[in-house]
């Protein structure tokens, strides 16, 4: 008996906020923390919490820079994160298109 593809969904990505973060970073070379906050419409603390989860999973790279005294936090997907998102999207399409698991 084949396993339903939903069991293959990456639980780290398949959560509101984290999915939005990864989807935004997948389309971008890098994105500023404030851009993500405004796009996803979440608080700074909630966004930070989910970024930490993604960083610990090795999906997101965080780079803090300073322009004068002003700090900027840049986020980008790691190769591992990009591969995980690609795989996640493949599984998602299989589920929504009703394609049986190969």
């Amino acid at each position, binding site marked *: 008996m084949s396993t339903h593809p*939903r069991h293959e969904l990456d639980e780290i990505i398949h959560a*509101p906020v984290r999915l939005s973060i990864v*989807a935004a970073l997948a389309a971008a070379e*890098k994105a500023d923390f404030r*851009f993500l906050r405004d796009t996803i419409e*979440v608080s700074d603390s909630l966004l930070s919490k989910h970024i930490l989860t993604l960083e610990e999973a090795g999906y997101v790279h965080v780079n803090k820079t300073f322009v004068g005294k002003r700090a900027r936090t840049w986020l980008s997907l790691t190769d591992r994160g990009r591969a995980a998102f690609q795989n996640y999207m493949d599984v998602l399409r299989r589920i929504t298109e009703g394609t049986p698991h190969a």
Partner: protein
Amino acid sequence: MNADEGFTPQQALREVGRVDGRVRDSSRGPGWMYLVTGVATMIYWPVMFLANGAASVVAAFAWIALTIAICSYWWRRKVYEQRLMRIRSRMTIAYVSASSVTFAVGAFVAPRHPTPTGWAVAIIALAVISGTPLLYAAWRLLTRR
């Protein structure tokens, strides 16, 4: 958005599409920037090499102001879309190459004051070629969805 509730697969796909669209839309600004710079390039070189006196000085100062504005705008951006960066790298190579040729011909090869008609046409043609990569990048960024 309620962070405690999970997405259904359909909701997840919709959210991915929404966020992807927001990142894509962020490249419209650079699209307009390339359009303005492309047109400015096509005007700048002929003015610098074919016009006399005050017009060249005005063009030089306008070009410096435009360069500062572009650098400031680019530096302040909050997101750098992947496709924008790919288009930008190819466009930059084409633009710098074409502009270098235009500068070399205008500054070192073409006779000056008065510039013969044939050379003037050549400089205008080179200026148009120089600005074309920017207009192409603008077209790519402003027309896609």
